[in-house]
């Protein structure tokens, strides 16, 4: 088992209600798990907890094991050896996740040099290679550009390059395509798909969009108000949802199945039935 999360509960500050409670899931080598839920359901808190990025105000209990080694309670220094090396992360907002004052190539190179200890020339070569791999047509130009000179799709590809450059065993992607146009989203998902297949890395994919999760993952976990209410193989969950919330998500995911102008099914319909 590569990543195993058990009974993970996170509280913030003096609040008594936990942001997430009793979360449990696991990801094997090369496996892809989709974490789906609405905003505020605790998806992002979960991914930040796994990366050890929650900050001082969070109180964490339960267990997060990376290859059998317990991570909860470990120092930030310990975590930073994992982050960017064994685990890579892609965030939603490509503009705020990149430093606007630094050329993109240098930002990727820093990650390389931090963990791989490569010299400048080696790092540059590796940066150009990874930028080409994520589907950027002109890596030299992209590497020498500042983030605001790039389009949203190009920025998100640079972020993916940063996350993948040290060949992590697990990629955590938090709504990586939500801010993108649909045609760009389709391309970025395709490239992400191909890259993961080539490197054999596992994936924890977080989204509110069931159709996008279904495109990327073979297993899904459904989050609702800080808990995982259902988990299983994609086809099983889609074909035979156990929880009414999941049934609602499936029904709302595809509006083309409804007659134009007719009333669309909403999540609440399914709560009532149960």
């Amino acid at each position, binding site marked *: 088992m590569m990543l195993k999360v058990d009974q993970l509960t996170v509280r913030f500050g003096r609040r008594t209600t936990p942001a997430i409670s009793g979360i449990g899931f696991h990801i094997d080598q090369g496996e892809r798990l989709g974490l789906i839920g609405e905003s505020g359901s605790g998806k992002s808190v979960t991914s930040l907890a796994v990366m050890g990025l929650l900050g001082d105000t969070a109180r964490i209990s339960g267990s997060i094991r990376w290859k059998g080694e317990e991570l909860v309670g470990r120092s930030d220094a310990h975590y930073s050896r994992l982050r960017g090396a064994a685990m890579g992360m892609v965030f939603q907002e490509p503009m705020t996740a990149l430093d606007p004052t630094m050329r993109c190539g240098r930002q990727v190179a820093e990650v390389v040099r931090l963990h791989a200890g490569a010299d400048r020339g080696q790092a540059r070569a590796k940066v150009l290679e990874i930028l080409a791999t994520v589907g950027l047509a002109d890596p030299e130009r992209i590497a020498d550009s500042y983030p605001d000179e790039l389009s949203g799709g190009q920025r998100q590809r640079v972020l993916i390059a940063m996350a993948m450059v040290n060949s992590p065993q697990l990629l955590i992607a938090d709504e990586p395509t939500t801010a993108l146009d649909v*045609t760009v989203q389709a391309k970025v998902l395709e490239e992400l798909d191909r890259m993961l297949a080539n490197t054999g890395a596992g994936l924890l994919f977080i989204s509110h969009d069931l159709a*996008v999760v279904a*495109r990327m993952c073979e297993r899904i976990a459904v989050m609702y108000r800080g808990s995982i209410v259902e988990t299983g193989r994609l*086809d099983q969950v889609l074909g035979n949802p156990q929880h009414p919330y999941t049934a*609602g998500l499936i029904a709302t995911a595809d*509006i083309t199945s409804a007659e134009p102008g007719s009333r*669309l099914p909403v999540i609440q319909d399914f709560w009532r039935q149960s």
Partner: protein
Amino acid sequence: MTLLEARGLDKTYRRSGNPVRAIRCIDLSVASGDRLGIVGESGSGKSTLVRMLAGLLEPSFGQVLYRGNPINGANREQLRELRRGVQMVFQDPRSSLNPRMRIGDIIAEPLFSPVQPRSIRAHAVERVAELMDLVELDDVAPNVYPHELSGGQRQRVAIARALAPAPEVLIADEAVSALDVSVRAHVLNLITDLVATQNLTLVFVSHDLTVVRHLCDRMVVMRDGVIVEQGRTEAIHANPTDDYTARLLASVPRLPGH
């Protein structure tokens, strides 16, 4: 009858000194009772176009006509008519709702506009209650602030504000794009109902062809400031003639087996 009409609209912005032609010579007309979808991706010029239709942005060339009268050089009374008759809902309620105003005040704001008759101010409180009812916010107190609401509720506040002056045209610019997929259905149902019950003419802007197909009977597809395809929604959806439209349609993520 034709309510809104664009004739040879052209808009050039200056971005860091360089001219960017966002809209290129667009003709378009919206008749009373129309449900028109405008589809395109970021940079296609769709937001620029509808802002010009709403009289919120001046075209570089060409004209917008409301009820047959050009907006540029309209007299005071014609401008009043436009401001009362055409209202907009924006994409992100975090930006379209003033964080320091209570939602009751936000919804009531247009009633206190100089283009409205002073007499309606006296009934503002009842009108706000009525509007909140209309957008299914009857269980929310009018004295809360936007940040206390969920994303879907905030967008309902924005819709209620747009309906306050009882407009005949509602322009929605990506009004469901910032919402969770599961909340989207709710707001789409609301818009469908409101268009029917309030006799609204709808201009709905979206990057998502499937959403436009659900709400609109006619659509135009925009790319780089130009209309690349237009016609009945069903027809385009079933058989897109333009490559770009086909690509847009194919890019919408779908559940397997649907």
